[in-house]
């Protein structure tokens, strides 16, 4: 077999096991990171409940889609979970607005360090949310995807191209990337073009000035939580469709999400997206075992014996942490000039 085919095979392998997974994981992180950034820009605190909120949204989707499947309200080949999102979104919005009304609103009215009290309160909310999720679904992992698993499978791809290595496109990956693009486009349109979006940006840039120009703060906060509900539910559902649902896993997503937000620059939506893809690609590139890839590229004498894995898979969360530390050491404002690096 000629060398060029080997190179194509090697890259097909890489696309299947590294690039596609990293793209979809990055999109899921980006949606979560956008939710954190939104809360940060408007409410001025880091939302520690984000991971568990994603679990809560996914829980709603699982319960609703379970009911839909039992009633037979499905579309053949299409994941029912996606059909359940609109209804789950309503539930999630109610939950977040309720939490805002019961917990966060009180502290906005008093003069106090918003960042500290916000974190403490959100940690309280985090545990309440986590407890509710575990109460209804238990702590163990489960899968809830149905319908076609693949848009095209490895076998179909091989038959079509004649390559040794195939690329499969999972339905969940395809949906993740498409939905992420749509949502991000919607968010940027909303923030740049609509009146409410402009009000939100003004509020985020300078609260006092925004209030003086007659912007209704309650409305801005309400819209923020609605957007957070949208991003959180969809990010959680897509992550669950891709990797399965486990409450602890969602809780731990907090780390890569925060890393993404800080790497990109707190409060900057573009930064959050860039940060998310940086974190996702580093995580998957560093934990992938390159043995097969190198066998395609190197001459026989240089074939590796070990897995050629830079970091064990069990340490993937450590990677986001290390990225976080490096950014804090070198450029604490993040790649896209975040808001502030010291307390206001």
């Amino acid at each position, binding site marked *: 077999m000629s060398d060029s085919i080997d190179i194509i095979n090697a890259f097909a392998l890489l696309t299947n096991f590294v690039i596609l997974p990293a793209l979809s994981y990055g999109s899921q992180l980006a949606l979560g990171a956008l939710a954190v950034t939104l809360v940060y820009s408007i409410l001025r605190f880091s939302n520690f409940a984000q991971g568990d909120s994603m679990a809560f949204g996914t829980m709603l989707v699982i319960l609703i889609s379970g009911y839909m499947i039992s009633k037979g309200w499905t579309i053949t080949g299409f994941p029912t979970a996606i059909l359940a999102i609109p209804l789950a979104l309503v539930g999630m919005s109610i939950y977040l607005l309720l939490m805002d009304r019961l917990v966060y609103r009180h502290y906005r009215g008093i003069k106090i360090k918003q960042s500290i009290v916000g974190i403490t309160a959100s*940690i309280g909310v985090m*545990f309440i949310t986590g407890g509710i999720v575990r109460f209804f679904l238990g702590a163990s992992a489960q899968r809830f995807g149905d319908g076609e698993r693949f848009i095209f499978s490895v076998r179909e791809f091989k038959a079509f191209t004649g390559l040794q290595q195939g690329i499969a496109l999972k339905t969940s990956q395809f949906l993740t990337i498409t939905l992420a693009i749509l949502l991000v486009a919607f968010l940027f349109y909303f923030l740049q073009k609509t009146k409410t979006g402009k009000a939100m940006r003004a509020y985020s840039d300078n609260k006092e000035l925004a209030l003086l120009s007659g912007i209704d703060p309650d409305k801005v906060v309400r819209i923020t939580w609605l957007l957070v509900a949208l991003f959180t539910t969809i990010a959680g559902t897509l992550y669950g469709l891709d990797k399965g649902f486990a409450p602890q896993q969602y809780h731990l997503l907090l780390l890569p999400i925060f890393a993404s937000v800080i790497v990109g620059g707190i409060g900057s939506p573009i930064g959050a997206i860039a940060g998310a893809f940086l974190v996702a690609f580093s995580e998957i590139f560093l934990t992938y075992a390159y043995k097969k890839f190198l066998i395609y590229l190197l001459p026989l004498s240089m074939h590796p014996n070990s897995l050629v894995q830079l970091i064990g898979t069990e340490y993937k969360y*450590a990677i986001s*942490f290390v990225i976080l530390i490096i950014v804090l050491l070198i450029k604490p404002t993040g790649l896209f000039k975040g808001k502030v690096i010291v307390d206001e």
Partner: protein
Amino acid sequence: MNNIKAIWEANKVIASFTIMGLILLFVGMNQSWALALGIFNMSLISAIMALGVNIQWGYAGLFNVGIMGFAALGGVSVVLIAQQPVTEAIDAGGMKMFLSLIIGAVTVITGVLLNRRGVNKWLTAVVVVIGYLITRYYFSEAADLIEKVDPAITGYLGGFGLPIAFSWIVGGLAAAGAAWWIGKITLGLRTDYLAIATLGISEIILYVIKNEDWFVRGLKNVYGLPRPVPYEVDMQQSEWFQNIIAWLHKSELQLLTQSEQIDQLGIYVREAAVVFVKLCYSSLFIAILGAFIILSNLALNSPWGRKVRAIRDNEVAASAMGKNIKRQHLQIFVIGSAIVGVAGALLVTYDGIFIPTAYQPLRFTFLIWVMVILGGSGNNLGSVLGAFIIWFIWIQAGPMGLWVVEMLGNNIQEGGVFLEFIEDRVHYLRLVFMGTILLLIMRFSPGGILPEKNKEL
């Protein structure tokens, strides 16, 4: 009515501790003394942890969301100090492991030095990556060799075989080291960064403990750690102990026949041995907790304490007075984490086994937080009281919840499946319950039960 209120205000501390003591006495009389002492001892350990967190949060307003990680470092140090070394494993892979760790350390130091000298960043990166690859090569080989040595019983390097009391100090030092590193990077930046970094480091510490079997056996747990107090079995066999118990129960024993007396005495001795061992632990923990409380109260009332509170209450003003805020925060963060590390070591000493999966953020990080905030942030005695109350609720809430569910179950005949479901999951509601307590106190009584006295300088 006003009178009662005034008396309560004046004797709040004594009154609340007395009530807590009476509740524990009640548990001892009605359930069992072993249970009551068990709760008491765990409360003492939690109180030490809460004290450490109170120093960080109450004195300086620093956010530590990684209490679990620091406690786990304390636990690891117990294994590393007190366990006997496994000579076969050391012969098999000890040297290689040592070598790989040395190469790793050299790599890190070279990387830092090159970076400081301003050498080209790419060159530095290349050096670090090559060093890392060499380290990893030797490291995985050594780890394999060590883990192959009798994996069912050992499969790890063991410890130094030193007296267990050393491990409490080492645990404190290990936690302090980790805290220094984290604090150095994140303090001085936004408040949230410290919280996020501590959250991250605590998870990573646990990943390392769970996955590196050669280190402290990973998920296989470490059993049979040595004890600082006598074993129950030895107590049962020692004559003086039997004589004391016989003397204590003299009147009851006299009513029985000879053979019955011996049987009954055996039962009494067995129960008493458990209680006695727990009491030994209690006195040990009380001594350590007392020492920490006295020291931290002295510190809080010294010029140092005033400086710390001044920084907490108004950073800008304190900074204008020439206080180095970042250094002060770092110092406090390290001290607080060290105390948490000591408490983590005491906890593993008390349990006698090291189980990595027992470290749950809820149990270690969150519960301690609720203790500090409920008791009264900034008040050391408040943290101790908070520890007792919350631990008591934590232990008794499960049985009480189940009891309520069962009561309902007796009355409702239908819906058995539903009840079974609730019985199965009811313990997760503790999360919701504790979260609610935290939010309620924050909202309606931010000072806690025993608010800080010298809040206003």
